[in-house]
């Protein structure tokens, strides 16, 4: 297993995702001899996991069952331990495409945070790309380093514990893309520009507040970036359900003549049905209304 390559069978040392049912999942590290408690009973790693196919149904000691899933950055995003607010797949997907990330891309990122975006980028730039990720918080930098190693992607990433606004990304002239998710991105624009390849590259800055966006756009223009564009994207989820709508009762039909004025339900005669079922997509009561503004730009030719 790795976060950047699929494998068929579960092996010791893998990070697997246990799926219990509707929106209920958690990650675990597969270890020979280990046991994991779930509400359906115990999972014994050696007998229930190791050597079995990913996607298998595993019956737990109490009789209930779970599915074991191969990790993906998207599943990781939904299950990782939060050390900071994280980016979710909707923003990540747009960032990936708008930064033109692909195998071989060299990317600079700050801050690393909880590594949600980092894992997604590593998946996209593997096997020949590299990620330089800067995190000014020491423990977070260490935790990220540890996770990258456990997830077998450490060969693709370099974690730096420093302040990107003061010390930059640690590299110059190599990046195809730079991503900023920091409180004062305008202070890092200059460093971003020098980290990027001379021939150009793409930049993205993610900020929750419009004031930050304004300052960042101004800084980008000052530094000669072009194609500056700010957008936001929101996810709308739908619940597919069968709903039952009752039919009104207008009284009995007049047996002497049919009255076209009173509409019956459209279509052939509906004798004594009191309700109609339709399958529909229902929007949830609330939805995430804002995550942050995404500002993209291209480094122009020097």
């Amino acid at each position, binding site marked *: 297993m790795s976060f*950047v*390559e*699929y494998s*068929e069978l579960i092996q010791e040392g893998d990070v697997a995702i*246990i*799926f219990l*049912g*509707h929106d209920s999942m*958690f990650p*675990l590290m597969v*270890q020979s001899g*280990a*046991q*994991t*408690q*779930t*509400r359906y009973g115990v999972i014994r790693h050696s007998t229930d996991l190791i050597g079995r*196919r*990913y*996607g*298998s*149904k595993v019956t737990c000691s109490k*009789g209930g*069952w779970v*599915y074991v*899933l*191969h990790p*993906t950055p*998207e599943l990781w995003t939904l299950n990782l*331990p939060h050390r900071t607010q994280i980016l979710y*797949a*909707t923003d*990540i*997907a747009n960032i*990936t*495409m708008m930064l*033109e990330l*692909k*195998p*071989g891309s060299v990317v600079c990122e700050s801050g690393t945070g909880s590594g949600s975006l980092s894992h997604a980028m590593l*998946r*996209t730039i593997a*096997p020949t790309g590299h990620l330089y990720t800067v995190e000014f918080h020491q423990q977070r930098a260490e935790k990220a380093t540890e996770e990258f190693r456990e997830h077998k992607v450490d060969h693709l990433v370099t974690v730096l514990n420093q302040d990107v606004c003061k010390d930059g990304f640690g590299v110059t002239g190599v990046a195809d893309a730079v991503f900023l998710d920091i409180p004062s991105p305008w202070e890092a624009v200059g460093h971003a520009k020098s980290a990027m390849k001379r*021939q*150009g590259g793409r930049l993205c800055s993610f900020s929750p507040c419009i004031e930050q*966006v*304004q300052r960042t756009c*101004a800084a980008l223009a000052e530094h*000669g970036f072009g194609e500056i*564009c700010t*957008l936001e*994207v*929101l*996810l*709308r989820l739908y*619940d*597919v359900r069968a709903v039952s709508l009752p039919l009104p009762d207008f009284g009995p039909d007049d047996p002497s003549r049919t009255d076209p004025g009173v509409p019956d339900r459209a279509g052939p005669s509906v004798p004594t049905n009191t309700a109609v079922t339709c399958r*529909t997509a229902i929007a949830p009561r609330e939805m995430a209304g804002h995550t942050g503004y995404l*500002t993209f730009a291209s480094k122009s*030719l020097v």
Partner: protein
Amino acid sequence: KPYRETGIDERFIIKDGDFVVLQRGDVYKAVQIQKKRKVIFEKQWFFLDNAVGELYGSTFEVASGGSLQPRKSKHPEIPAEVKESGMDNRNIVDDGRSQKLTRDDIETLKEQGLKGQEIVQQLVENSTTFRDKTEFAQEKYIKKKKKKYENIITILKPSTRILALMYHGREPGKICHLRYDTLAQMLTLGNIHAGSKVIVFETCAGLVLGAVMERMGGYGSVIQMYPGGGPTRAATDSFGFPEHFHRTLHEFPLCKVKALLAGTLSPDEEGKDSVDGPAAEHLDTTAGQLIDGIFHFILHLLQAQEKKVKMEEKRKKLSAAAALLQGRNADGLVVASRFHPCPVLLTLLRFVAPSRPFVVYCQYREPLIECYSKLREQGGVINLRLSETWLRHYQVLPNRTHPVLLMSGGGGYILSGTTIDDSASASGPQKAEEPAPKRIKLQETVA
């Protein structure tokens, strides 16, 4: 040309034969660089010859005669010498007569060879109301005129981002109205990455296929399922992938899927038309006719041989694709077509391994609702999710920041999920649909 000497990575330099994208403002057009070939873009005709050897991202102006002139240095913007400006528009009357230059005047200026920037300057000087406008209004006016009269063309290297933007703006009907952010979601939810084996079924001119191939980077394999005669790949060509990418691309006709699933796909299916030798020619006795006869005989032989070779190639390709599919262990499925998604999804999912993602795009919601229900009934999938994304652009300017006035009404819908292996016998009913309890953190493991 300077760039060649500086040893810059080849990939950044425009070459003859390259597939590129022309950009002017927010209009894009995909073309291939072919010397001495006239190209039309935004009501202008020109040759791309002078672009060869320049860097991608370079900007050009169209000179008279149709040649491109590179703009090497960053032109200083019309100096923002704010001479005069007003406080508001209470006294500005729009009677359509404030511009003193007529259409003909402007044409004359163009003929005299004035550059776009200079024409804009002339318009500003000949506008009676310009100095009454507020600074913001003046900026807006200049921006508008620049957009119209400046003809700066940028030559870009194709990418999913650019081509998706282009198709959505120019020919959305060709891509089932798939908006670019929706495509982005598909690539991420589908976990498309180097080294995997992905099945793609699309009727989006090959844009989705190209996007998938870009994210695979030439590693792994992509099997494109196609309806009818052959796969459409017009947009895929526009990506300008290097030759070796095409070795990872396979195709398989939908009409043979049933046979493949049933195990009855015979390797000789494609070679059905027997390629016999040419009919024996009745050779005439005269020498001239004899030679003529022999010539035609040989010609037929060669043509038949060529046909045989092509058939053999086609058969080999079909075999190769079938071999990849047969294992029923694909790492993902991406569907984006005008066909009803239900049968497509239910059939093609059978080729996908367990614990792998799939993504289906549909311009409309109802067919996906049907898919969702059918999949729930059939089982074998979890994390089913019906979604769409809402996208909004912003104008960011000092004291003038606000969402852009016009917004996309819709970008289509996505149904996504993960496959699982349902075949193991269940040990009793279990409420898989109960609402999730408070989120479980990383579990403690007891060694």
